[in-house]
């Protein structure tokens, strides 16, 4: 098998295993990454929501926020894990297509 084929299989395996990135923090009761708290959490941490943060934090509404489908927040870990895998697959599909396009434009032809 060609090396690139093996590496693509490796990426596919990582996509399927990606919910570990959701389940392990949950299991060990770890919160968000440092400096990535929501506005509500910020209120608990420092007792107020910084004004600029309050304004900017809702600037962008991502279509699949935090790799979870909207409205699925209460659906439990199996559903969230499923959404995580689908998010990884969608994200990687788009990233790969973009890099292939950029690569085609930039790379030297013929060798």
């Amino acid at each position, binding site marked *: 098998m060609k*090396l*690139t084929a093996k*590496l*693509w299989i*490796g*990426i596919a395996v*990582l996509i399927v*295993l*990606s919910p*570990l*990135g*959701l389940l*392990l*923090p949950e299991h*060990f*009761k*770890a*919160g*968000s*990454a*440092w*400096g*990535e708290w929501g*506005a509500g959490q910020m209120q608990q*941490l*420092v007792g*107020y929501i*910084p*004004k*600029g*943060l*309050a*304004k*900017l*934090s809702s*600037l*962008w509404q*991502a*279509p*699949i*926020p*935090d*790799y979870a489908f909207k409205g699925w927040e209460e659906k439990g870990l199996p559903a969230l894990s499923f959404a*995580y895998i689908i998010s*990884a697959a969608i*994200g*990687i599909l*788009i*990233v*790969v297509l*973009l*890099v*292939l396009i950029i*690569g*085609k434009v*930039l*790379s*030297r032809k*013929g*060798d």
Partner: protein
Amino acid sequence: MHIPDGYLGPATCGFFYVVMLPVWTAASRIVKKTLKARQVPMLAIGAAFSFVIMMFNLPIPGGSTGHAVGGVLVAILLGPWAACIAITVALVIQALLFGDGGITAIGANCFNMAFVLPFVGYYVYRAISYNALKDSNRRVAAAFIAGYIGINVAAFLAGVEFGIQPLLHHTSGGQALYCPYGLNAAVPAMSVEHLLLFGWVEALVTALVVKYLQKQSPELLREGEVS
């Protein structure tokens, strides 16, 4: 290390966009000269790898989470400029589609993870693996150390970017407008967790894949050495 919207003030956000524009321009120019058409699939695999490895959040029990970036590996295999492009694409999609990292902070996040991280990692790797044979263990050790140092320098800088916010922007009453934690809190928080846990993950991932590729396709380990 994905700084969200609202943590950095406009001055910092603007500054890093301005810093990154010439970096992205230089990256396109240099990659155009050096990237061979047959390396493009590897670049796509590198970007995909970086994207998915960043989803593997690891817990500090009872504390925060973090993850590897995979960017040092991409830099070792394809050179730091190509890595810069691959990781930028991954970070932009994470911000736009998944809200992972703010859109106002894309410049800063790319500076940390798509510029500093692969460049520092790449030159540490090159220095340690200088003149090493393709199958030598020194390359694996170099990859390990490069991964550890690359992500830790990036994490330190993220800590500085968070930490200068209370100095730059606060109300007359002393309340912060953006990130409320100063350098004395943000830098240790970002650095300690990466020095203790996430740095070792980046190191291990980088070294394991280099070890694997030494067996599978040793010539790949020379192709990244573009400059």
